[in-house]
Every structure is written in C-alpha cells, then in structure tokens.
C-alpha cells in the first residue's frame, strides 16, 4: 500500500517537473513553491494556528514579560524596568511553599486514586454484563458536569450537621467532622470529591485500552494456569501502560490547575486553610490582591511545571510515531 502511494506520488512529481520543463530555473522554483503542499495546505492550518498561537503562546510570552515587571494595582505595567524580583519573592513566601506542598499532595493522591478506582470500574465493566452501557454512563456522569455544579453538591454532602458523609460515618459511630473546615481534613475532602468526578474519565480510557487487548491474551493466561487476579496483574494491567501514562498526564495537569472547584467550594479566592494550592494562590494574588506581576510569576511557574510533564510525554509519543 505504502509503495503504491510512493509510486503515485512519484508520478505526480514527474508530471509536474515535465510541465515546468521549458521555463527558467527561477520561475520553476517559484512555481513549484506555489504548487507545494506546504503552501496549499497553509490556508487550512494557518488561521487556526495564528488564532491559537497568539492566545496561547503569545499570551505566555507576554505573561513572562509581565512577571518581570513590578506591575500591581491599577494603571499599567512598566516594561522598562525588568527583573527577577517576583521569582525571588516566591522563594521567600512561606505561603508559596505551603501551596506547593498541597499541590504535590493533591497531585499524587488524586492521580493515584483516580487511576486505581478507574481501573476497578473498567475491569468490572469489561465483560458481558446487563446494562453495561447504563453503568458506564452513570460512572462518567460527574465528569460531564461543571466544577461549579459539583462543588455545590459536595458542599452539601460535607455539611457538618446535615451532610450525608457525616450521617454515613455516623452509622459506624464516627464523626461528625467538619470536612471542609478542619485544616487537617480539608485537602483530603477536596481530593475525594475530585476523585468522584474524575474516576469515570480514567475508566473510559482504560476501557478503550482493555477492548484493544485480544481475547487470546486472556485465554492464553488462563490456559497457562493463572487465576483471575494474577491474570489481570501480570498479563492485562502491564499492557495498559500506554493508557495509564496518558491518563496520568491528563490527571496531573488537571491537578496542577484545579481552581474552579476550590473557588466554588470556598466561595472565593481564599480556600480554607490547608487547601491552598498554587493555582488558587496565583488567582488570588492577581484578581484579589491586584499583585499582577507576582501572579504572573506564579502562573509561569505553573506553566513550567506542566511543561515538565507534557514535554517528555509528547517526546515519547513522537518517538513512537503516535503524533
């Protein structure tokens, strides 16, 4: 098939050269350039690239510039006096370190919990069951909702007096706890709610990967004498690695920028003590305290952290020819 395409392409190229045959070198170069696939395809990818590029990469560049100024309050930034003072301020700000720690905890616990719960869901659903689609639809439902919406539900779930969570653990003689008020509990409560919302997503990723594993793999493992658990653990789960990697990337990136949910749960830019992460800290410094330059510096830090996750991922994808 590939060969055929190559031949067809060669034929086309030859024809093009032949029609250019009598003209001067210069003209043929120009004409060939005008004829080239690059230029012909440019109207398709060009405008989206410009729009997206300006808003994404232009804004990041501008953000970097802003982070070097001392722009705060009203008025405008002064681009003549640039320096790294905002970054040194970050290093000295204990609130940044606390937010970083919380971000790391959120990122690790949330990602692992989502990966684990999603795997359980996917394995349960990856067989002939009645209403399988209905189950999948229900498990994925929270993911289709806005964080602002789910935050409302969880505020009520975590309500100290009337919340279902306290009522439930009350059955076992525990609680009540102030889930969203106690600094020791608040981060865990937020993570739990976010896992509720995201585990359906990992389930869908796993399900697609599971479906692409041929049934012979399961059968071979059975004939080889493996029980159900050993079969999944030694034969199936290792083959899910690409799915696990891509789901991890998405989950980590989300954990880095999670802001909406915290804003809605805590009614504003200031999460309860113990739940502040870099993303909320950044938004608060800018849009609450008008410390625009400082806020940009934190934003850029978040970008660099994301890049540290995306770049290796994209690189390996490129190496494998998946791009």
């Amino acid at each position, binding site marked *: 098939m590939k060969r055929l395409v190559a031949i067809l392409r060669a034929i086309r190229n030859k024809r093009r050269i032949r029609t250019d045959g009598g003209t001067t070198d210069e003209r043929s170069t120009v004409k060939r350039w005008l004829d080239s696939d690059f230029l012909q395809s440019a109207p398709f990818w060009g405008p989206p690239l410009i729009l997206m590029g300006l808003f994404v990469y232009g804004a990041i560049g501008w953000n970097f510039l802003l982070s070097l100024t001392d722009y705060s309050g009203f008025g405008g930034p002064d681009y003549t006096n640039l320096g790294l003072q905002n970054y040194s301020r970050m290093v000295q700000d204990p609130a940044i370190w606390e937010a970083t720690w919380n971000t790391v905890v959120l990122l690790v616990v949330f990602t692992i919990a989502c990966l684990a719960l999603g795997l359980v869901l996917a394995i349960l659903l990856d067989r002939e069951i009645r209403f399988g689609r209905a189950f999948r639809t229900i498990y994925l439902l929270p993911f289709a909702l806005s964080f602002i919406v789910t935050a409302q539900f969880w505020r009520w779930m975590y309500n100290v007096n009337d919340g279902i969570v306290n009522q439930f653990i009350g059955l076992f003689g525990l609680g009540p706890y102030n889930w969203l008020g106690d600094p020791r509990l608040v981060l865990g409560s937020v993570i739990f709610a976010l896992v509720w919302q995201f585990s359906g997503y990992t389930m869908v990723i796993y399900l697609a990967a599971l479906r692409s594993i041929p049934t012979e793999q399961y059968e071979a493992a059975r*004939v080889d*004498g*493996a029980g159900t658990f050993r079969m999944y653990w*030694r034969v199936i789960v*290792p083959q899910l*690695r690409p799915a696990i990697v891509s789901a991890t990337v998405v989950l980590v990136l989300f954990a880095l920028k999670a802001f909406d949910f915290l804003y809605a749960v805590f009614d504003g830019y200031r999460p309860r003590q113990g739940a502040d992460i870099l993303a909320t800290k950044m938004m608060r410094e800018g849009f609450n305290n008008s410390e625009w330059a400082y806020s940009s510096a934190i934003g850029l830090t978040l970008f660099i952290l994301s890049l540290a996750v995306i770049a290796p991922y994209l690189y390996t994808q490129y190496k494998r020819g998946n791009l």
Partner: protein
Amino acid sequence: MAQTKLNDVTKVFTEDDGNEIVAVDEVSIDIDDGEFLVLVGPSGCGKSTTLRMVAGLESISSGEISLDDRVINDIPAKNRDIAMVFQSYALYPHMTVRENMSFGLEESTDMPDDEIDERVEETAEMMGIEELLDRKPGELSGGQQQRVALGRAIVRDPSVFLMDEPLSNLDAKLRAEMRTELQRLQEELDTTTVYVTHDQTEAMTMGDRVAILNDGTLQQVGTPLDCYHRPANLFVAGFVGEPSMNFIDTDLHSEADETILQADLFDYSISDEIATKVSDSSDPVLGIRPEDIGISEDPPSDKHDVAATIDVIEPMGDENIVYLQFDSEDSSREAESIIATIGGMRQFESGQTVTAHIPEDAIHLFHGETGEALHNRRLETAESQAPQL
C-alpha cells in the same frame, strides 16, 4: 500423558435474540495417548469451539470430556494441565521471550525459579530460539513468534497440546517447514495433540488420525488415507483431496443382464457386486477422483469409456488439470463437466475430443438422499493405478 475422550459433546450458543445455535452437536472422539489428532473442516464447522471446550475456555452444554477417565467438564482451564497454541500466538507483548515461556510454569506449578530457568533454556535450545530469549515479541519475525508460541506450550510439559490453526499466519514456504518440524517435535515428545486446521494439506500430512467436522457434526474419524480412500459420506469425499472428487448424479436402472447408472449425458454400467450395494438408493451419486480418470486419444472402446471435450487445461508443471465436458447430443441440456488430473508431460489442447476412462475399480457411490457412502473404491488396485497418473 493422557487419554482424552469426548463423549457426546455439544455446544449450544444462545444469541441475544434468544435464538439457539448448535455449534457442536454430540461429537464423540477417543484420542489415544500420544496421538496426533487433527480436527478439520470448513470455517464455522465447530472445530475451534470443540478445541476450546477441551481447553476449558468454553463451557460444555452437554456431554462429557474426560482426561484419563476423569471428567473435566467443570475443571477451570487453569487446572486442566493443558497447553494451547493460538492462531495469533497470543504472546504477552510486554514480556520477554523468557518471561513468556516461564509464565505458565510460574502460574501452574510450584517449581523453584532455577528449575524453571533450566527448563526454559532447554526448551529454547530444542526449538532453536535460545538467542531470542531476551527479546520481546514485537522484535521477532512471524516465524520466530510462532516458534516461541510453540516453545511456550512445550515448556509446560502438559498432558495435552491444543493447537488452533497455529501455522495459518505463516507464509507458504515457512508453513511447509514448520509442518515437518511440528510433526518431528510431536513424535519426539509423544504428547497427545489436538490440532485444528482448515487446511487439508496439514490435515492429511500431520495427523495420526483426522476428525472431519461439518456443521457441528462429526463426519468421520480415521487415518488420513482412510478418509481419502474410504470416505464415509459425500461431504468427506468432497472435502478431502484437491482438486476434489467429481460427483455425478445418476439414476439406477436395472436391465436384463446389467445394471446401468444413467447420468444426464452418459450411461455407466456397474457389476452385480456393486449393484447389490447400491440397491438402497434409486439415484446414487457417482464419485470419481480426478487422478483416477484416464484420458486417451483413442476412440471409446470399453464400456467405461466416455467421449468428452477438453474445455480448459491448467498446467501445474508436475501435472495437468483438465476440465472435461461431456458432449450432449441434445443441445438444450447443459453440458456436464468433470475434472481430471494427468501427468504434466502429456500434451493436449483445449477443444480436443478425447476419451475419458472411468475405471470401475476406482468409483465411489453415495446414497442420493443421505449422502452416505454405499460403495468405496477397491484399494488393492490403487497401487497399480498410481504409476499411470
């Protein structure tokens, strides 16, 4: 080492809309210890389902499968002490060849690691794949993967090997090579083997015995030559052999001194001995293998000679496949054609009129309705016929 018995084994699938489909219908086969049994049949005949029931990958709707007199119907696959080679090989892509081969031993036995290692190395050496041990399946060629899949089954030293079309993904040359090698290995290991294939060359050359399935029912179990020369019914006769046996519908007419099989375009007289065998059926089917038909340029002289025209010749090198048409005096009737194979050095042209000789010794006769064999060819003459090909 085991004797495997299938006793009235039946598999019924229930479709989503409640329809029941009988995939395997009361199949009974006794497989001897160390035997190489080939299950063969057209696609969808139930041969793979039968194999998968032996493996424990498919439940048994009714009937029994036993291993050494122990009924194994309800024993899960992992405890059956069998090894299987899949059509797609089903090698674990994330494990090296060594890990692939040790997996089964680790899961199904308590063997210590060093002993497992030793056995893997030994088997790899036997299969000639010792230098591949640390590679992953993705880095191997199709033929190498095939060897690893075999090695993975062999290293287990199971009581039964099950093979589901293991050679069908190889190219023709490699397939022929592996066919011989598999036979050699099986003889050496002397392990009971059930081999599923749709390729009748494999069936004929590899098996100690062949079990032919069609539509879920067992048609015949026997040695390959038995099935070839003494087919139990029309299906087996048509399925075994390439090009397949010619079938001619006839009507039985008894006249004063002879019995005649009346085909559309010619009459064929048969001896009394054969005639008594076919008396059950008024419209028996006459079967004759292509290589048993003689062709000559002489005019018809014998009562078993028929005039025919050569329609097409396909030279194969060692032989010619000749499509013969019987001439019809009545042009409204469609010409009937049969296939004959003759020696590759003989020269004929299409359109040429020849005489086809259908020796009575070589004919088969089948019941017109049931398809059951009423008379099979005489075997003692088979040998003397051969050089004439």
